[in-house]
Each structure stands twice: as C-alpha cells, then as structure tokens.
C-alpha cells in the first residue's frame, strides 16, 4: 500500500519567526502577577477552603460508595450493559459548585478506549503545537485571564461528547481535533505577535486581523499572509469553553455606558477592548458590518482602541437576494483585496485562491452528504462537536487548510458505515427529531447534548449550519469575486437574520419539511433584535402548522441573564406538560452547573 503523503500546512517558518520579548517588561508583569497571587493568598478564606476540600473528599467517598452499591444491586444483564455500553445516569457526574465534573464518564470498554485514545492524541497535539514556541505561549497566561480558560479545553471536549458511544464518539473526536489544532496554532501565533509578549516584528508583518464575525476565505488569495480571526480567541470561542469568561467584558462595557440590551457578542468584543484583553498585534484589520447592527457598531470601538491599525470595513448589502446588489458585494470584496495588497505590499494570488476554493467546494459536498444521512430515519453525525465543526469549517477555515479534507473524508466514511449498521449517536436514546433555530446557545450550555441525553431529542441540524452550498466559481475572476461576495453575505446567522423575514421564517418551515422534525428548539436570544422582532409571527405560524416549538430564552455568553438551568427548565416544562413525555435520563432533569465550565 502506498504511503500517504504527509500534508504540511502552516509554514513551519511561522513558528520560527524571531521573537522580540522585552524581558524587563515581562519581569515587571511577573512581579504584578506575583503581587496578585499574594493578594489572593492573603484574602483567601483558608478555613473555608479546607472545609470545602473535606467536603469534596467526603462527597467523593459517598459517591463511590453509592455507585458501588448501585452496581451491587444490578442484575447481571445490567452489569453487562454497563460494561459494554457504559453508564446511563449522567446527571450524577455533576457536582454542585464544581467547575468540572466529579469524574470522567464510563462509556463501556470499547468507547472508553476510543475516548482515551483520542484524549491522548489531543494532548499530544496541544503539547506539540505549544511547544513550537513555548515561552510566549505560556507567558500569555500571565497577561490575559482568558488564556487560563483554555486550560479547560479538554473538559469542553468531554462535555461535548457526553453520552456518545462508538462511531459517533470517534467522529466527534476527529472533528474537534481539527478545531483545537486551529485554535492552538492561532494562540501560539497571537502570543508571538502580541506587543506585550512575543512582539515578533517579522510575524506581525504577515498578520491580517479579521473580525471574528467575518469569514476567512479572503485570505485564501494571499498564501504569504496569515489571517487571524481577532476576537475569536479572547472572546467568542473561549466563552463556549468557559461560560464565565465574558462576564468581566460585559460588565466593563456596560459600566462604560453601553446599554445592557445589546447583543452580548459585540458587547463582549467592545468590553474586551475596554479592559485591554486583546493582544496588540497585526498589520491591518478587516472589520465588518456582519451579521447585525451591533456588529456594525463594534467596529468603531476597534478603530478607536487601535488608531494605528489600518482598517477596512467589509460591509455587504443587507438585501443580499436582490440581483442588483451582487456587483456591489463584489466591489467591496475587490476593495478589500486592494486594501490588503497595498497594506502588505503583496499581490492577490488567483491560483492559490482557486485551489483553496476547489477544496472548499469539495468540503461543502462532503457536508451535504452528512445532511443527506441526517435527513433519513438514521441520523448519524449530530451533536455539538459536529455543529461547531460545521461553523468553523464554513466560516474560519474555508478551504484554506488542506489537513481538513482527510478528516472530513474519514468522518464521512465512518458515518456511512454507522448508517449501514443503523446505529444511534446516543445509543438507544433517540425519541424525537429536532431542529435548532435562531441564535443558538447550545455551545455555551452544551444544550443539544443535554437534549439528546435527557429527553432523547436529537438535533439533526441547526440554522447556523444551513448556509451557502452552491459551488464557488474557480476559473473566472469576475464571477469568482461575485461568488465570494455571495458567500460572505450568507455567513453564519446573516444568511437567515438579514435580507427579509422570509429567510428565517419561511425557511424554517421549509427545513422542517426536509428534515422531518418533530420539535423545534427555538432559541430566543433576548438581545437579538433581528430575531426578537419576529417572535409573534414565528409563534403564530408554528401553531398554524402544528409544530412543537419550544422557546428557550438565553443571553448567549452572559449566563447571569438566563442560566443554563433556566434554559433546561423550559424544555423540561414543555416535555412534561405538553408532550406528556418521560425523560430518557431523569438524573439530568435537575443538576447544578452554574459554575461548571
């Protein structure tokens, strides 16, 4: 058998770029950090801490004793099932006031081995990646508190695959691995570039900062440059790992004067600017009006914070389905390309762009294959890992990274095998077919995973996955620009919430038909004006069409407005009172995860 060619992506020279660390400043920062630690140590209630530790030990003893007793009371058949298919009462993994679960999940022999294998692989990748330039990467933790939250990333992985077994578990791990690799590499790059840290002049010359709400495909035409979704790592993504990360940002910007009714995404972005949580880096910034009014305004805060950073505002037509706006979007793309060319003294490379977009088109086809399987009676590739992967692949990667293709191919292969075997992602739990609509909070709250484990509601697809699927032009420069404009206009969220109510209301009914859903999980971000203004229409039409629509209020990354527990309560209430249903796992009905990452 021919040996597979190893794909090298991200030029290794990037990580070798010379750092220019100001050690004197680092010493000063370390001193400040040390003073903070001393302060914490002085103000800590050590007796309370000791009591808590004693409580934890006692709690562990009780838990272990309880679990041993449960096993002792089991029949041999139940014990065999526990051995092969793992535990079923997942609510017991949570512990009040704890940041992590009480222990790892027992998934049965085979799945636990799979889980362990991929867990090891993940740690290996993380250590290798950070090891490429360890000093600035580690030093970041002394400058930014959000970096500490990334220490919990493997816990995030565990959370997202909770209850999954066999092939579904394997697929989730494969996809998460690619996302984590992307994040780890970018974190190292950010650490190297940050003026307060690595301060690599050589690398900064190549860095195009891109607004986190803007797609990354434009960088495909600049193979010598690196596109970094700027706020993604200090704000958006980390808040999915640790629900408390954005709270200080939101508080800071609201104290500054921003009304509390604005969407937590741009609010957090602006708040991170207020408390100086963004690394000082890059050679230019691509801001954007997408996906909504709040995001448009956040660009003003960025320009104010970093006045020396040249900014290009990508601002596409809102009524993107008007034929006459196609050339306007293309003109904006062209303007952006010219801006980057000028700023970085480089040229747009059509060949490289076309190569990446061919890859992106292929990836889109692989994505559609997944949808086809999920539309059948035996959906295979579902859950938060997949949802996150789809979003990342569509929005951030965008065909740039060739290492993603083998992952997707492998996942699709496993998926087809599982489909042939009529397997279930959550073994024996599926009772309802669900669709998620509106601005989703499932990552912050691990919601689709909980829905499947607690009530057997399998989320087959979510609104944010259903974006532009037409192949992008890869041979005609003019048409390619138009296609890229169309793609950007249909970015995650914007595709539905902009351009008229039909894109989100009528589209929902169309998708419900296609996916044959029983239940609509209608997220209600209390601050999303685009969606909130359609609440009555959605409600009325759902009633007319006879859909079960469960409204779940949330405030994205601000869990203080609506807690995870309150969100789950909405589903519990609906399932009990309207559906008269019994939970698949009653231990997940009520549990405390207010502090859990």
């Amino acid at each position, binding site marked *: 058998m021919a040996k597979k060619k190893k794909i090298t992506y991200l030029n290794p020279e990037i990580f070798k770029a010379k750092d220019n660390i100001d050690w004197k400043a680092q010493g000063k920062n370390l001193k400040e950090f040390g003073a903070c630690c001393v302060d914490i140590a002085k103000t800590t209630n050590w007796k309370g801490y000791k009591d808590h530790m004693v409580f934890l030990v006692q709690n562990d003893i009780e838990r272990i004793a309880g679990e041993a007793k449960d096993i002792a009371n089991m029949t041999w058949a139940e014990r065999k099932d526990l051995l092969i298919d793992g535990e079923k009462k997942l609510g017991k993994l949570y512990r009040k006031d704890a940041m992590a679960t009480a222990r790892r999940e027992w998934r049965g022999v085979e799945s636990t081995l799979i889980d362990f294998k991929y867990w090891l692989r993940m740690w290996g990748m993380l250590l290798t990646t950070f090891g490429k330039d360890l000093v600035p990467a580690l030093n970041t933790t002394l400058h930014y508190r959000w970096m500490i939250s990334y220490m919990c990333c493997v816990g995030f992985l565990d959370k997202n695959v909770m209850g999954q077994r066999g092939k579904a578990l394997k697929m989730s791990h494969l996809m998460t691995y690619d996302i984590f690799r992307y994040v780890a590499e970018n974190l190292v790059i950010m650490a190297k570039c940050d003026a307060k840290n690595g301060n690599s002049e050589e690398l900064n010359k190549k860095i195009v900062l891109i607004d986190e709400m803007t797609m990354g495909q434009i960088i495909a035409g600049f193979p010598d440059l690196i596109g970094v979704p700027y706020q993604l790592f200090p704000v958006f993504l980390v808040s999915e790992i640790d629900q408390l990360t954005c709270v200080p940002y939101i508080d800071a*910007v609201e104290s*500054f*004067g*921003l*009304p509390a*009714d*604005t*969407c937590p995404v*741009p609010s957090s972005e*602006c708040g991170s600017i207020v408390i100086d949580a963004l690394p000082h880096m890059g050679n230019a910034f691509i*801001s954007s*009006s997408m996906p*909504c*009014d*709040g995001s*448009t*305004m*956040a*660009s*003003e*805060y960025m*320009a*104010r914070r970093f006045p020396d950073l040249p*900014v290009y*505002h990508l*601002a596409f*037509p*809102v*009524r993107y389905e*008007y034929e*006459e*706006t196609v050339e*306007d979007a293309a*003109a*904006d793309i062209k*303007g952006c390309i010219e801006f980057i060319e000028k700023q970085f003294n480089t040229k747009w490379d059509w060949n490289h762009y076309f190569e990446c977009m061919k890859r992106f088109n292929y990836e889109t086809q692989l994505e559609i294959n997944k949808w086809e399987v999920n539309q059948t009676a035996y959906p295979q590739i579902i859950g938060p890992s997949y949802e996150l992967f789809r979003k990342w692949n569509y929005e951030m990667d965008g065909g740039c990274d060739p290492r993603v293709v083998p992952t997707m191919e492998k996942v699709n292969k496993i998926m087809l095998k599982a489909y042939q075997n009529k397997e279930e992602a959550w073994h024996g739990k599926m009772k309802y077919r669900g669709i998620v609509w509106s601005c989703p909070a499932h990552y912050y709250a691990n919601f689709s995973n909980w829905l499947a484990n607690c009530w057997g509601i399998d989320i087959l697809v979510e609104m944010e996955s259903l974006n532009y699927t037409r192949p992008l032009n890869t041979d005609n420069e003019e048409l390619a620009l138009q296609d890229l404009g169309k793609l950007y206009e249909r970015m995650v969220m914007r595709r539905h*919430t*902009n*351009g*008229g*109510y039909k894109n989100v209301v009528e589209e929902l009914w169309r998708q419900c038909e296609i996916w044959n859903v029983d239940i609509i999980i209608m997220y209600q971000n*209390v*601050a999303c*004006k*685009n969606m*909130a*203004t*359609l*609440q*009555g*229409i959605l409600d009325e039409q759902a009633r007319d069409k006879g859909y079960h629509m469960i409204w779940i209020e949330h405030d994205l990354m601000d869990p203080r407005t609506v807690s995870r527990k309150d969100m789950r309560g909405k589903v519990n209430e609906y399932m009990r009172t309207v559906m008269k249903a019994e939970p698949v796992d009653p231990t997940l009905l009520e549990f405390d995860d207010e502090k859990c990452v």
Partner: protein
Amino acid sequence: MKDLKHLIYFENLLEESSNELIKQAQEEGDLAIGYTCYSIPEVLLNVDKCFSVRMRAPRTGSIDIATYYMSNYTCEFARSLLERSIEGGFNYLDGVAGVDACSMMNRFYEHYELLKLNEKPNLFVTHCDIPFKTEEWSLNAYVKQMRIRLLDVMEASYGVDTSDKAIRKAVEEHNEVCKIITEIGNMRALDNPPITGYEFHILNLVSYCCPKKLILPYLKETLKEIKERKPDPEPWYRARVAVVGSEIDDPSLTKMIEECGAFVVSDRFCFGSTPGREVIELNDEEDALTQICRHYMMKSECARWMADSKVMQRRETSDMLAKKFNADGIIYEQMKFCDYWGFERALVSHIMADEYGWPVLSIDRPYNARSSGQLRTRFQAFVESLEIKNIQGGKK
C-alpha cells in the same frame, strides 16, 4: 414673547399620524408616501403627484399587540408604528418607502405587509438596501436602489412621473421649505432668540409630516412673523444645549428639556433639521438622482455609516453645531433598544467630553418620553451643572 399665530394649528397637525392637510392633498388626487428614515431621500417622495409623510405615532399609549409581534426588547418607535398601523392609523398611505438600514424598523415594514394592515390595491412597501460606506461604488449602489426599488416601484404602482425633470421640480419645492426652516433655525444662535427650541421643533416636524405645497404658505407666514417678533427683554433660558442622537419625533421631549431651563439650540437627531433641511444644490451636468443620493449620503449623520470619515464627521458635526449655536453643553440621547445609537452614544459621549471638552449628558429614553420624571430630573441636574460651570468660569 407673543405666541406664534399658527402654533396651535401646527400642534394639532402633529396630534395624529394623519392630519387635515394630508387628507386635503389626497382628496385632490395626490398620493401619500410614508417613510421613517433619512436614508430615503425625502425629496424623491415628492415627485409628481406624490407627497412624503414622515411616519410618527403621536400620543402612543399601550403597545401590547406590537410587543406580542416584536417582543419587548426592541425599538419602541418601530413597535409604536406597528401598533398604530394595527389600529388603522396608517390606512391612508398609498405607499411605504422603507429601507433595510435598521433591522427593527425593517421588521415593522415587514409586519405592515405581512399582517395586511393596509389593503389599498396598489399599495407598495419597499425595502431599499442602503450602503454603509461612502465609496464611489456605494453611491452607485445607492442610486441603483433608489431607482429600482423606489422610483420604478412608484411608477409601476401609480404611473408617477419619476423623470429627471420631475425630480428637479421636487427639489425646487424642497429647497424652498429648507431655506425657510434653516433661516428660522439660524435664529437660535442669537443670545436672545425670537423662537424657542420647542417652537422650532414643531415647525420642523410639520414640514416633514405635511404635503409641502400645503404647508409652505403657513411656513412663509410664520417666518415673516418670527422676523418681526420681539423677544422678551431678558433671555428666558438658564443654559443652551445641543441635542444629538437618534430619532425624536415627539416635540414634548424638547418641551421638557426647555421646561427644565435648557434652550435647545440645535437638533442633530434623526428628523431634526440637521441633517434634513439643507438645500440640495443641483448642477445640470449630472442627473438629479445621483446628485440627490450623494447629498443624502454625505449629509447623513446616522450612526450606521461605518466609514471612518463618517465616524469623524458625526463628532465634528456635533462639535460644530454646538459651537455655532453657542451651546453650553450637549445632550447625547438614544431611543431605548436602538443598537446603532446605543453603541455610538456610549462611546462618543465620552469623546465629546474628554477630547472636545463639552459637558455632556448621556441618556437613553423611551419613545414616548413626555411623562418621564426620571428624565426631567436628569435634565434639571444637567442644567444646574452647566450653570455652576458658567458661574465658575469653566465655560468652554
């Protein structure tokens, strides 16, 4: 000062979403086109037999039904318009010139169509796309939208003449109104002006809410009257303030500010006179539509414009107006739940204070603010602080 002859008449015209001049014009065969946003060039709605009506929901009470449709954390202006439409308050409109510039207002237009709140057979509702930047191609896009999504629709629905000649004629009439309002407005710069901010707000609003040809004679007469009007021997105000921010169509807010002792010398808010009452200068070399779009694009002060030049323009305009009209301070205001002005107000109220040196009062307010005791207290406190600054010689 002696009361203005037509003030009560003007106030009455603003008491309803419709008014007797609108009815009169429609009886004469004219078409009423409603709009809410400066991004729709008002003058284009006054071509041929059409006349523009700035949509308002005066004396708004409960907005419960609109809140059912649009939820409670959304723009009260949009919700009030929906409520008023559901009540039948906008049945008389022959068309609605909407823009998809602000998502909440756009949803109002959509509900207006979706709930079939006006069943006139030829009714049209547009959703024009408005650029965010001021590039040359942004202007082309703007022109295209106004032609395809507005003028062509007016022509197709009612056979309206939207030719260059018809547009230029509308500009002439528009400019006549603008000149009068500007002349009256400029009198606010005087130390002891013959007009109050409230009166000016009323005059400016009727110019937006009534058919131009019917309101013009009244405005001309009022201008003459104001020119001859004798102010009281001493100025009535304790401080002079410029108001900057989002939409205010309720003159009672201006009245409340003035009751607290602050003379509103400048109205840099949506549907104030800046922008909105600047004369449109046309040349013969370029088509009128392009020139009009350029005028609106460059004059607009909406926080939605992302271009760096527009961001700076907004700050400079506020500063320039406050200086021109000898303001003592600036009130930055924002309608509750307005994303654009929420972000803008939070940031720029600091900038105007820290970098431009203006005393600033930063507020958010409900659509219907006339009964807000909280706002009244804040205005009173601001006036006192301005007075103290003046006494201490800290005036800018």
